[in-house]
């Protein structure tokens, strides 16, 4: 029941706008704790504005897919590929940053452990999905 409700919510047009607002609130609280209330307020305003924009944006497939209410099996496949591309780009950026750090005489932190986390997560995911069939 909870699973069905959460799936329905993920496919409603409120998913991404509310997620953006939630993320903005998290950044706001973190900034507040860190003593940067102004920067946190700006982040919250930006995330809330992005969420509102997505909520009232047009009915293009890309917008509806990102928002959640236009998702079907084809868009799920698009989402999976886009996530893979984003992950690959992130990995390449981390490798470039790590190599730059090492080449300039630094330790390579925190890029080294971020790359280790990514590598371990990838291997664990491959093993899990192979086991699950």
């Amino acid at each position, binding site marked *: 029941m909870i699973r069905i409700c959460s799936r329905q919510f993920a496919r409603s047009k409120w998913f991404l706008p509310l997620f953006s607002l939630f993320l903005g609130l998290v950044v706001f609280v973190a900034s507040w704790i860190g003593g940067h209330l102004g920067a946190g307020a700006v982040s919250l305003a930006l995330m809330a504005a992005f969420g509102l924009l997505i909520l009232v944006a047009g009915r293009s*497939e890309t917008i*509806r897919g990102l928002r959640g209410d*236009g998702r*079907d*099996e*084809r*868009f799920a*496949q698009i989402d999976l590929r886009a996530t893979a591309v984003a992950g690959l780009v992130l990995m390449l950026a981390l490798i470039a940053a790590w190599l730059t750090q090492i080449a300039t005489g630094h330790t390579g932190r925190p890029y080294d452990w971020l790359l280790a986390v990514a590598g371990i997560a990838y291997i664990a995911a491959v093993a899990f999905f192979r086991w699950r069939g």
Partner: protein
Amino acid sequence: MKNKVRALRTQRNLAQGQLADAMGVSRQTINSIENDRYTPSLPLAIALARYFGVTVEEMFDDQDL
């Protein structure tokens, strides 16, 4: 994958949107299937075949696999 979705749909005077609503997918997904740009999942292929009263083999051409 080559298929007869467009032919079967137009035979029944259905719009892409109507077929999409019946299948629970977007109109763009039906369009992509008809233009051989997207191969549907097995459940969707079976649902399409049942909807048109044909077999999956009749609807989809597996020669290009």
